[in-house]
């Protein structure tokens, strides 16, 4: 039987049993809708979590061990020798040094060029970490340089991309400050600071002078709680204030592939150093929790789809039994057993495809309603997503395919039964 004729006949049969077809399509629709909804929720929440706990999957943060026996077991301080050994580990592409600035730096005025209702007498201590410029090279704005400036020059700094979001969503409303413009609009601004000044009593250095920080870019590789300056700047300031550097605060290892990370982490620990899993660990735990929850819900949805397949199987079996004589008549008119089987499968296929399309549409509508309800109920917090769902194109295809597949699987036995009808007996 030609495809056109097959579809025509299947459509006629479905039309003759509208109620059954609608019930079957409804079952397939619910299964597909639940599956698409929960998978979209899992993907969407996962993406939101990744935005919240952004981390580069190829970076390993090495820190001195919490308890160290010095160099006796190969661990201890993160000095240049240790950095060299870490950089030579298999799978490590580069090792970038980090050194926290131990000279206090504070900001008592608003950044130049930005209208912020800075409260009188308000001073912010600015945590600063010096890093090898190579770590942030990709995030420095075009035309700006990330290197220790000549005397009197503004010190280039990079801030966390997420800092603006956190400031706008928490600090600004709490302190009644003006919100900052998004992202790159801030790059190039200069912040007046006082080097050597601390808001903590007795921590201010003997020498305090004014300087300027120049925002040279935003980066995910800068910790949320600090600004990054060139390592050479930290060393210079430490030398100016007579601070001795026994070793680096940390070393960031860039590995070739994310898959290499566990092996590198094990090797680092084997060398007697610690690994600060910080946000990455949170992101991994959150991601795992989301994946497990979404997986369980998707499994539930698959179960619903399997139940839909059973419902379709039962309904089609009853329909085939009721239509035994009609099927025999079709065979008397020239239908082969294959035609009859194809006809029943086509009926199921049409039901499944229609149910799947309706299910995908239902999932989108349900997601819209859920988003509106959730966003209306939740307070405005940093990285609050605009939607908790993500619908990649493959998910639509999956929704329809699963529904279609379930319907076809459900129709296999009834189709086989229909193909076994003996026309000579049935038409008699």
């Amino acid at each position, binding site marked *: *039987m*030609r495809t*056109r*004729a*097959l579809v*025509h*006949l299947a459509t*006629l*049969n479905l*039309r*003759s*049993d509208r109620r059954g077809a609608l019930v079957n399509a409804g079952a397939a629709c619910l299964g597909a809708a639940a599956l698409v909804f929960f998978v979209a929720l899992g993907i969407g929440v996962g993406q939101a979590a990744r935005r919240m706990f952004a981390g580069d999957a190829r970076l390993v943060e090495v820190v001195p061990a919490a308890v160290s026996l010095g160099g006796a077991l190969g661990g201890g301080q993160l000095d240049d020798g240790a950095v060299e050994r870490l950089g030579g580990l298999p799978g490590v592409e580069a090792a970038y040094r980090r050194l926290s600035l131990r000279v206090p730096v504070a900001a008592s005025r608003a950044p130049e060029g930005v209208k912020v209702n800075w409260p009188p007498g308000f001073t912010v201590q600015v945590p600063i970490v010096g890093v090898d410029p190579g770590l942030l090279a990709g995030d420095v704005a075009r035309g700006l340089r990330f290197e220790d400036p000549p005397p009197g020059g503004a010190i280039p700094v990079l801030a966390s991309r997420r800092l603006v979001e956190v400031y706008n969503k928490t600090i600004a409303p709490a302190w009644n400050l003006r919100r900052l413009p998004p992202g790159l609009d801030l790059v190039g601004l200069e912040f007046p600071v006082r080097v050597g000044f601390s808001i903590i009593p007795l921590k201010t250095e003997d020498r305090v002078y004014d300087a300027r920080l120049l925002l040279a870019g935003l980066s995910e590789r800068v910790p949320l709680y600090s600004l990054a300056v060139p390592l050479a700047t930290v060393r210079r300031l430490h030398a100016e204030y007579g601070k001795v550097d026994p070793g680096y605060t940390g070393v960031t290892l860039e590995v070739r592939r994310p898959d290499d990370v566990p092996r590198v982490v094990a090797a680092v620990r084997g060398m007697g150093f610690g690994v600060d899993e910080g946000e990455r660990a949170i992101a991994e735990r959150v991601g795992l929790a989301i994946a497990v929850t979404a997986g369980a819900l998707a499994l539930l949805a698959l179960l619903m789809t399997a139940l839909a397949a059973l419902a379709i199987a039962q309904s089609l079996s009853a329909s085939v039994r009721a239509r035994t*004589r*009609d099927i025999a*008549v*079709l*065979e*008397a*008119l*020239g*239908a*082969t*057993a*294959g*035609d009859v089987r194809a006809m029943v499968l086509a009926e199921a296929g049409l039901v499944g495809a229609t149910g799947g399309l309706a299910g995908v549409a239902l999932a989108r509508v349900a997601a819209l309603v859920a988003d509106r309800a959730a966003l209306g109920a939740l307070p405005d917090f940093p990285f609050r997503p605009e939607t908790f769902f993500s619908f990649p194109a493959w998910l639509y295809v999956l929704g329809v395919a699963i529904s279609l597949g379930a319907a076809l699987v459900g129709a296999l036995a009834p189709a086989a039964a229909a193909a076994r009808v003996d*026309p*000579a007996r049935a*038409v*008699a």
Partner: protein
Amino acid sequence: MISLRQVVKRFRDVDEEHVVLDRLDLEVRAGEFVAVVGASGSGKSTLLYIVGGLDADFEGEAVVAGRRLGELGARGRAAFRNEAVGFVFQSFNLLPALPAVENVMLPGLFVPPGRPAPSLSELRGRALEALEQVGLREKAGRLPARLSGGERQRVAIARALLSRPALLLADEPTGNLDATSGESVIALFGGMVARGMTVLVVTHEERVSAAAGRVLHLEDGRLR
């Protein structure tokens, strides 16, 4: 057109075997109108189903419309039923959910592979023509339930004519009809034979056998 030689058909009960057709011979020439009469249960319908390729479980030789039925597989028999034979049943066997025209179109949906398949609109046109031939064009859109018994049988005849088969097989075609409707069906058969079609009808009604050119009696599994 039909040549049956030494055809034997057995039915097996639980532990008993019944011979329904016993070394039966039948010759029907093209363009003949032949009626087979016999008592209920004598095997008339079984004979018709063997000739029509619906029942392949028999012994002996059957050549119908140039095809050796014993040598055809399931697909071959389906193609044979679609192209060479038109069936008319006592209980009409129309699909109740389909309008008359869709019922008539059905054989056109099962055109065997390798043959040109008509489009749905062509098929509809041919179905309407067939309904015209039986005088029911104006009722093409009606469901079988909204047609009288005679009209339903005429729709069934139109369906049998759609593929323009050489042979029409009718199983008690007037069994469920009143006298007037039965007459109109018999008249239709007469018209078909006049146009060169072969008609084999099994019946126990005298008015049908009276219209046939030849009447055969099926008794004890053989034709006399």
